[in-house]
């Protein structure tokens, strides 16, 4: 495992940071918060031109064939800048299952479209209980000839308003094994009977919605992977998604620390800068130390996935448990050290706070992943 960034990775990181500083200004972020769809198609096009949207796809599907660790370097920077875009939804949550289980035809069509910036995707899996697990999937897809008919509501769908397609998981047969009988479909978002209803979630830069499907027909050729066997590619994808969310959280946490230390050096109270108070110093020291270890576990998880290492599931759960706890704490302290302005809508602190909360919850929180770690210790 190579733990130091290669020269190319350093370049990618610098390029990403420069790009986001230039393109993802604070006023852009604020505008996207209020925007119903929540991302800029022009920016998306530029990301496609940089090769980011197909970064990890094979070359024959328009991709760059780079590693997953490379991709997560982008995720770190996206966390830092809070870049509003359906990147994780499109490339990771939906792109990867298509890559893992899709037919050659599907990969050629959809992955190439993603890489070219011509298609955005949203993952429609969660339902009422809000958890990513096979038992939560109750919505049915009834076969009718060469079609399947979808009826039901998917909830907590990220970037649904931005999506051209949904990757949707529905039950195609009842089975005692909850993992069995789940099938993955690519559903055109413009299909008659698809209705997106925003949820007004706290993270306004990663908008979530209900998506209601009423008698929506999907041709059988839009099934990804085998019928009834759709959980497997989703489960595999969830490891990558979890690691990518850790990378984003660490990016958020490091930015929060930077902002907080800068503020502590400027803000004056009782005639001195607040950074000279030991209570503030020690909080900042703990933020830095926590992030060192969060980053270390996150990098391990990303490297293990890049190398297809058998330790990947352990590394991912350890990273998720640790990054979630640390980054939530870092954001708490960031708000606290900023005082009143840190609690204000106008300041960006709450945007980082909310992004970290979103990521901490997604694919299971710290406590859930610690239990997975316990199971793997047995």
């Amino acid at each position, binding site marked *: *495992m*190579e*733990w*130091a960034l290669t020269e190319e990775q350093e370049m990618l990181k610098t390029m990403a940071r420069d790009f986001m500083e230039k393109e993802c200004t604070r006023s852009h972020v604020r505008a996207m918060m209020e925007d119903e769809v929540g991302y800029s198609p022009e920016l998306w096009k530029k990301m496609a031109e940089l090769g980011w949207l197909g970064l990890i796809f094979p070359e024959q599907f328009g991709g760059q064939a780079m590693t997953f660790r490379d991709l997560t370097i982008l995720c770190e920077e996206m966390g830092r800048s809070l870049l509003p875009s359906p990147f994780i939804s499109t490339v990771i949550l939906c792109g990867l299952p298509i890559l893992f289980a899709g037919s050659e035809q599907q990969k050629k069509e959809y992955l190439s479209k993603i890489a070219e910036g011509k298609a955005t995707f949203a993952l429609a899996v969660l339902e009422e209980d809000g958890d990513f697990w096979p038992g939560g999937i109750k919505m049915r897809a009834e076969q009718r000839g060469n079609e399947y008919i979808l009826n039901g509501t998917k909830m907590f769908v990220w970037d649904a308003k931005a999506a051209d397609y949904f990757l949707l998981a529905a039950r195609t047969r009842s089975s005692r094994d909850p993992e069995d009988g789940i099938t993955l479909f690519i559903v055109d978002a413009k299909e008659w009977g698809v209705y997106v209803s925003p949820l007004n979630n706290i993270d306004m830069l990663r908008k979530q919605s209900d998506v209601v499907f009423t008698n929506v027909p999907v041709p059988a050729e839009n099934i990804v992977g085998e019928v009834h066997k759709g959980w497997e590619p989703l489960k595999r994808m969830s490891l990558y998604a979890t690691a990518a969310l850790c990378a984003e959280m660490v990016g958020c946490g490091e930015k929060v620390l930077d902002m907080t*230390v800068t503020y*502590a*050096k400027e803000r004056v109270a009782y005639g*001195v*800068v607040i*950074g*000279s108070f*030991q209570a*503030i*110093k*020690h909080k*900042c*020291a*703990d933020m*830095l*130390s926590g992030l*060192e*270890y*969060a*980053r*270390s*576990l996150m*990098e*391990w998880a990303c490297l293990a996935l890049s190398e297809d290492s058998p330790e990947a599931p352990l*590394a991912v759960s*350890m990273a998720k*448990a*640790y990054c979630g706890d640390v980054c939530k704490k870092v954001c708490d302290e960031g708000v606290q050290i900023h005082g009143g302005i840190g609690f204000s809508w106008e300041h960006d602190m709450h945007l980082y706070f909310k992004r970290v909360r979103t990521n901490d919850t997604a694919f299971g929180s710290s*406590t859930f992943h*610690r*239990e997975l*770690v*316990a199971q793997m*210790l*047995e």
Partner: protein
Amino acid sequence: MVTDTAKLEAFRKEVRAWLRANLPKGWGTPEYKAPDPFSKEAHELGKWWQKKLYEAGYTGFGYPPEYGGIVRPPEEIAIIREELARHGTPPGPQSLGLLVAAPALLAHGQEWQKKRFIPKILSGEESWAEYFSEPNAGSDIANIQTTAVKDGDEWVINGQKIWTSMWEFADFGLIACKSDPNAPRHRNLTCFIVDCHSPGLTKLPLRQMTGNAEFGEEYFDNVRVPDKNRVGEVNQGWAVVLTALMSERSGGGAFWGGGAAAIAGAFTRLAAVRAVVDLAKETRRFGKVVWDDPVFRQKIAQMAIEAEAMRCSGQRMVARMRKGWRPTNEASIVKNFQAEMRVRNGDIIMEIIGAYSQLNRDSKRALNNGDWVYQMLRARGATIEMGTSEVNRNIIAERILGLPR
């Protein structure tokens, strides 16, 4: 890369074979009877083992060959430390030579001192103590009051040192003294190598809350030290003190060993976590198997996560050092994380063993020879020695993050 990996795996096998052939008879089996910690026998066993390691080229890294150093690629060093940690080996001699004296001498010592002292530190033949702290100078170490007065080409030392680890069998001490009563702080100290058998030097044991006299105190009554034993320039001892402190915080030389030491330490801790999982499976509290309790499972999983975090951070450090980066104040991050982890881990085990957490090492009913209880108690010293947790937080905030002093 492929051949590299293959070569490294072959090297790992070689280290394992060497360990099997050279560890003490019965090592790792119930028949093996370890000497009492802090006893003369334990010290002698440690010396014997370090000499063996040194002769095999498995220790002594980070020093140039002219001072007895062993040169190897960082990947091999990491493997050696991993394998040593994985097998569990006898603890080294009771000495702060590797942790404190050798790094300080390498950075600040005169040529003859480096040639004379460093090789015997690396081989474990000579043991060292660190004579810095005093009753009124601990965190505020610049406030040292022990005096050194020049008399011809000798210096005369008077004063008291305290909390000295590894005091009993030390051959030499690195001492910091006030050499100029009028100069300002940080420009009034000078460091020396003092022979621990010098006339006028009295050593006394001090018991810790563990019950052991792991540290001691020393009285210096007109102890004479030749000027050639001076380390660094006159009144420039503060730089020597800082090097020593930074090196001990990183676990053996911030400038070369920090990452590898963290990796090795993590392997020891991971082995400990596996033992705790077994313990939790075998133990019932109030009739219920501990490992079936979700709260305990969370806590034990967290122990494993923190141990891996420590390993991964070490890997990152080694990788960056290979590219020329040198850690300095980062040692404070490493030191605090490890010390505070020891506190947390110790407490979790106490909860698992319930009433048995009250038994000392020599109790007839003590579990695991009382070592878990001992480690829980000893961890309380870890957050004080080598700079308290608070002092290290100050260093992180001021010297890494640049917050005002």
